[in-house]
């Protein structure tokens, strides 16, 4: 398993170069002049524009710009934004916010997705089961931004339980509603997956054996039904954690949370290649590691999986 993990980590190196190259190329290919964008509607000295282009290497051909950027990264210099802020500093401000949001969302997803999923399976065909199925269907069907604005209006404006936007109240007060919105879709999937796979386990031969062994119902549920049915759920959740980290652009926008998603959106608009590439690369790495952890976890949960 150790060798497997090392090989997987080594495989990440080409992926790292591939993504940085691809994203850089895409940013380069965006129409419009980033420097001119900065100064729209203002009288600016062309010499100053030229100076900025010079400073940010924008006059160089693409491949030189890219290699220059790579050289910077290897010395842990992620570059600067057009207004002079080091990208590393942006990371230090923004990542903790997004990670907090994502982890809160993930916690809700695990707790309620699995918890309600189990409950629904145990009460199959009863009121709670039907409620959960209808509820999740609505969540899946309604776009996140609709859900987000509704939640903001209900909890932030009408009820006034939390501030409608911003993170000035800290964790958990400022994070709980956006996290719930962010988690909602995955939570719905996790709930349905848990329920479905648990119901399958209930009808399995090994659960019948467990009953024939005279084991108490709690043991049958924990060691037989759940232990087997949670394998696909854990796989789903693991992969989803990475998605939550990067998928918060809309949620962070609605609730005005200064996280990485919002930064990404702004930087794409400003053509700040260095910021975009940095963020996307980190997201890719997070995604790769999350997948690796899921794969390793899979082997721990299911002894039938062997690593070659």
């Amino acid at each position, binding site marked *: 398993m150790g060798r497997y993990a090392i090989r997987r980590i080594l495989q990440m190196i080409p992926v790292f170069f591939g993504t940085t190259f691809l994203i850089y190329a895409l940013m380069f290919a965006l129409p419009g002049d980033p420097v001119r964008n900065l100064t729209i509607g203002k009288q600016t000295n062309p010499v100053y524009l030229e100076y900025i282009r010079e400073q940010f290497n924008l006059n160089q051909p693409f491949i030189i710009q890219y290699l220059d950027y790579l050289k910077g990264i290897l010395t842990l210099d992620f570059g600067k934004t057009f207004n002079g802020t080091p990208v590393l500093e942006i990371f230090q401000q923004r990542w903790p916010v997004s990670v907090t949001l994502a982890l809160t969302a993930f916690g809700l997803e695990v707790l309620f997705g699995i918890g309600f999923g189990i409950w629904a399976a145990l009460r199959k065909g009863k009121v709670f089961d039907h409620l959960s199925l209808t509820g999740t269907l609505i969540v899946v069907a309604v776009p996140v931004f609709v859900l987000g604005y509704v939640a903001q209006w209900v909890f932030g404006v009408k009820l006034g339980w939390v501030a409608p936007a911003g993170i000035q109240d800290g964790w958990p007060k400022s994070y709980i509603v956006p996290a719930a919105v962010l988690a909602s879709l995955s939570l719905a999937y996790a709930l349905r997956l848990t329920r479905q796979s648990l119901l399958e386990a209930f009808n*399995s*031969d*090994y659960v*019948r*054996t*467990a*009953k*024939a*062994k*005279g*084991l*108490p119902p709690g*043991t049958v549920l924990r*060691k*037989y039904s759940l*232990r*087997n049915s949670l*394998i696909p759920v854990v796989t789903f959740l693991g992969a989803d954690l990475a998605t939550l980290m990067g998928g918060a652009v809309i949620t962070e926008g609605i609730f005005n949370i200064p996280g990485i998603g919002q930064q990404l959106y702004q930087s794409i608009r400003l053509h700040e290649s260095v910021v975009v590439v940095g963020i996307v690369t980190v997201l890719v790495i997070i995604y790769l590691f999350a997948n690796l952890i899921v794969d390793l976890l899979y082997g721990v*949960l*299911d*002894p*039938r999986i062997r690593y070659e």
Partner: protein
Amino acid sequence: MTPPLLRVDDLHVQFSTRDGIVRAVNGMTFDLNEGETIAILGESGSGKSVTAQAIMGILDPEVASIPSGSITFRGEELVGLPERKHRKLRGTDIAMIFQDALSALNPVICVGDQVAEMFRVHAGASRKSAKQQAIEVMGHVGIPAAAQRYGDYPHQFSGGMRQRIMIAMMIALKPAVLIADEPTTALDVTVQAQIMELLKELQRETGTGLILITHDLGVVASVAERIVVMYSGRVMEQGDVDAMYARPANPYTIGLLDSIPRLDARIGRLPAIPGLPPNLLNTPSGCPFHVRCTRAEDTCRVDPVPPLVEVGPAHKSACWFAEEVYAHGK
């Protein structure tokens, strides 16, 4: 007179499904004594496994119900017994071996722990002593190097070895009644013989009453003392193996026996009973077998269902012509 170890008396089991009520078992009756082996014989869907699950008390209460009949274990009524009490009997006094050990064993728990669980849950053994005892039982059922294989998982075993694990688990606490639901169906012929031999041996040691559910008539002849032939949830015939094989008293049993290939006769194409067992949602009136029976007459096609009548010592048959079929010999 002491009651038999296990008595099933006029047991009815039904399932409510979307399409209606399925009457899976209709008046199952038999006694099992200590150290005895009885075989329940029948085609798929004849109610064999449902009877076994009713005895175990593991029918799904959501859909299955027992409208009438009784199951008594050492005189204690099991039908309607509270689940808590019934559970205490399972695995300790009454145990059951299932057909396909690959799907019947938990794939994510090592086999040793699955055996040891019996000692931990029912006998309150410590982790260490349960492990010790589990290794002992595993060795006893013929798992080579049991101690080394304790931590292996079901998928790492061959079919025969998996079935041995299953047996080890179920005989761990020396149950008084052991139900084996087609224990060898999923196995190679050579392994089948080994597993049956093992079951017989264990039975001799502990005096367990064995209920063997099968459709393999060869297995029945070699291990069982008595046979109950089921069809469409009813008992068609029951009696001692030798008596029944020599002189069956029911056209259905004759049909089953005729369909066994024999070493001592060249008969060309093997005779089979034509048709299929009836749909349990909509059973025919009268004798359930009349549709396929060569002997059937008008009386067979209308209710009531023929009752079980005694044709010989401890030999009963449910057929209007039982005496005649019996007298006719085979």
